[in-house]
């Protein structure tokens, strides 16, 4: 089984080197999608041993994931793991995320913060809102909907085409899991919140933007 990790990165030069070298221990190949970074992200990722694929323009996380997934499939991946570049995840847990696919219990595995780790209360409320909306739109009873730690079987990765360029891709993936009737499983993952990073991720205006993007996605087709 060839396991390929896909890490979208936009100006993550500070963390990408360490993340790649850690993740490399648990997968066969690491693909970093350098999403038009203006810093040294591509260089550090390459030095750490990743295959770097570069967008010459910044296209957003959803676009970068789709590019990485395409590249992973081209390189013959049996399992595609998506992982964040900022070092919030614990690399050992890649084994937990890929296991249900190796054991043929699921086509898609989704990491969930809420089945484990401590999360600041303010984040819980916002993320709770996202979870609620996703339950309405996709019908999947998940505990965590905007988590970048996922694993896809090759067949699932081929079926799920991410069209949303920006953050709405997280909801789009869930919609497509339900649309293609893929077997999914949630696995608890640790998310390390660094004090300066609590501000990262989604804020209220971002949610409005995501909702708008999802709406627009339906209109575009």
């Amino acid at each position, binding site marked *: *089984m*060839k396991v390929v990790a896909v890490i979208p990165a936009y100006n993550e030069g500070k963390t990408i080197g360490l993340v790649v070298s850690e993740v490399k221990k648990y997968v*066969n190949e690491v693909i970093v*999608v350098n999403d038009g970074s203006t810093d040294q992200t591509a260089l550090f990722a390459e030095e750490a041993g990743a*295959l770097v*694929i*570069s*967008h*010459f*323009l910044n*296209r*957003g996380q959803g*676009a970068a994931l*789709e*590019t990485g997934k*395409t*590249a992973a*499939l*081209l*390189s*013959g*991946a*049996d399992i595609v793991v998506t992982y964040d570049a900022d070092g919030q995840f614990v690399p050992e847990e890649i084994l937990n995320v890929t296991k249900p696919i190796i054991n043929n219990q699921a086509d898609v595995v989704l990491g969930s913060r809420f089945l484990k780790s401590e999360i600041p209360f303010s984040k819980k409320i916002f993320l709770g809102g996202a979870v609620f909306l996703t339950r309405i739109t996709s019908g999947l009873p998940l505990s965590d909907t905007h988590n970048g730690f996922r694993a896809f079987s090759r067949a699932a990765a081929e079926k799920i085409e991410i*069209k949303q*360029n920006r953050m709405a891709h997280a909801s789009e993936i869930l919609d497509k899991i339900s649309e293609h009737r893929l077997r999914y499983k949630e696995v608890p993952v640790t998310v390390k919140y660094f004090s300066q990073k609590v501000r990262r991720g989604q804020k209220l205006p971002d949610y409005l933007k995501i909702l708008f993007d999802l709406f*627009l*996605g339906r*209109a*575009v087709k």
Partner: protein
Amino acid sequence: MFIQYFLVILVLLIIYRVIIKWRQGFLAFRDAIFWMGFWLVVGAIVLVPETTSFMARMVGVGRGADLVVYLSIVLIFYIIFQITVKIEKIERNITKIVRQVAVSGKEEKFPETDNGNNPAGK
């Protein structure tokens, strides 16, 4: 009234431009017809403003001028929506180009580029 002459000339100029754009292939036939119809209606309203008062009474809006403003706003929102959808489509197409360029530079790294379905590695 002076404003009427001015507006009629303006409308005629716009219709002329629409025809030119259609001839040059920048406007689809359907869109050209829509815009010509739209500007002809505007021209008619300019020449006979009383028609709007009549229509306003029909639909229960106070004054003809108000009806024109309401309809204009609806139309503008509709056009903005269409443009937004169009921009999103363009954005997605740009992404496809950027992706193609990004992946095609790495062909030697992908041994099975023929169909992407090679189960190698198993």
